[in-house]
């Protein structure tokens, strides 16, 4: 009878665990102070926790440690811990950030780290907010409407250079930090009149797509309230995917609104060019 042999996976895991333990042992430990917002439905206060932290930890690691050892009922939304799911959005020292992508070493060690829920959305509990408004807004934007297929087999042809421009917008992980920092939503609560930077990026991805034929410009001006954006670029500043939201999505859409509604000379030139093309 042969003795059970360790698998390659288990062997690898042991080595990883051992390496991690060695790394943890040699890493610098420190006690940091955290002020976490605790409460329900908008009511609550900061509660201070002292927590032992290790070099290399991010804010979400510290929150997990606190939840495991000091506050078992702490509500926090998280998922991938890799900055790709957009779940752990919060306000760290007053700035909208992903908890999993904010290193403790980048924050002032002399002062407590404050962690609050996003302010632009209804508060549920502790660090969790109700972001469902965003999904309702998304439904209001005209869907992708491609032109008829280019080939008999029902496929399309397009140039990479034409898709490059909208490719950037597809990096969005829907963390809604841009919505949170936008003062139109955050301070002025214009949720009924303004779709916010996230959905202006979404609209830009559709509107600038080389195959798309739908015209979203009138809606962008009226129902979606693009005129409420006053170009503070805060959305660009907080985007964890580094999407150039203002320069590449919002301003080009604003310019398309100008084409349609505020540039009579440009419009006449375009009508003349179209007629010339049709006649000749």
């Amino acid at each position, binding site marked *: 009878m042969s003795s059970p042999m360790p698998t390659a996976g288990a062997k690898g895991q042991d080595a990883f665990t051992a390496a991690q333990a060695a790394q943890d042992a040699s890493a610098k430990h420190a006690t940091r102070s955290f002020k976490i917002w605790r409460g329900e439905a908008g009511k609550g206060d900061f509660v201070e926790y002292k927590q032992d932290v290790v070099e290399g930890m991010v804010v979400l690691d510290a929150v997990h440690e606190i939840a495991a050892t000091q506050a078992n009922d702490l509500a926090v939304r998280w998922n991938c811990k890799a900055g790709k799911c957009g779940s752990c959005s919060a306000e760290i020292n007053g700035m909208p950030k992903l908890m999993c992508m904010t290193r403790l070493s980048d924050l002032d060690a002399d002062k407590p780290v404050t962690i609050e829920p996003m302010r632009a959305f209804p508060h549920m509990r502790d660090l969790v907010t109700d972001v469902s408004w965003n999904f309702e807004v998304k439904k209001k934007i005209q869907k992708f409407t491609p032109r008829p297929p280019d080939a008999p087999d029902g496929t399309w042809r397009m140039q990479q250079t034409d898709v490059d421009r909208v490719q950037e917008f597809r990096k969005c992980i829907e963390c809604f930090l841009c919505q949170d920092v936008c*003062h139109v939503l955050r301070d002025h609560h214009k949720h009924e009149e303004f779709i916010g930077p996230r959905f202006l990026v979404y609209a830009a991805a559709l509107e600038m797509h080389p195959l798309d034929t739908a015209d979203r410009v009138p809606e962008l001006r009226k129902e979606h309230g693009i005129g409420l954006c006053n170009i503070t670029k805060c959305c660009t500043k907080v985007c964890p995917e580094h999407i150039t939201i203002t320069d590449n999505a919002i301003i080009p859409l604003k310019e398309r609104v100008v084409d349609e509604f505020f540039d009579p000379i440009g419009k006449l030139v375009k009508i003349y060019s179209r007629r010339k093309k049709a006649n000749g």
Partner: protein
Amino acid sequence: MRRDAWWLQPLIVFVILGGFVVYATWAAFQNAHYAYGPYLSPFYSPEIFGDPRTAWFGGKPSWWPGLLPFSPALIILPFPGLFRFTCYYYRGAYYKAFWADPPNCAVGEPRSSYIGERSFPLIMQNIHRYFMYVAVLFLFFLAHDVWKALWFEDVPGVKHFGIGVGTIVLAVNVVLLSCYTLGCHSMRHVVGGFLDQLSRHPVRKKAYDCSSCLNRWHMKWAWMSLIGVAFSDLYVRMCSMGVWHDWRLL
């Protein structure tokens, strides 16, 4: 609440932009010391009315309002001024610095009402591209001024080629203004950004790529060209007043 020095950036914008507006207004009302040798201050270029010996259409026009002091710069400055005022970058910057709307990202506002750029007066910001067209025209005039700044008249009636520090100052000014104007968001849109299939228009595609390249530095061009144009006026003014000496390099 943010704990970093969030107030520093709007304060810097307030000081530099406010300082520029004060200096430009003061300089525009001077109607003096705006030319020195072959140099002409960009605040006064093109000199449509002004010095009867050099202006296109002679001295002070007859239709000039009696109550308003005359200065050639008052005809010129509103156009580049409005180009900058309606610029997408400056809008965001001065809404924060001068109107605290918001004071900075994720910082609470002092007022609850908000209309954005959807209603009068800020809806007028949408005509930015018309000021951009005028600003492009001005680049030609300023480039021509650099050409004129290469021809010195040390002996009356005899012009010869030369390069002074002033020539370089005016040339750098045109380069900075060109980078700012040609990388403007409206320029980027009208040269090709409005198209979804740029690959079908190779010339527009090239122009769009060039404008986009400049646009990535738009904020930096905005500040460098602002300082450049103010310094060009100051240089010509100081030389004309005899405070600074214009070094001739060639």
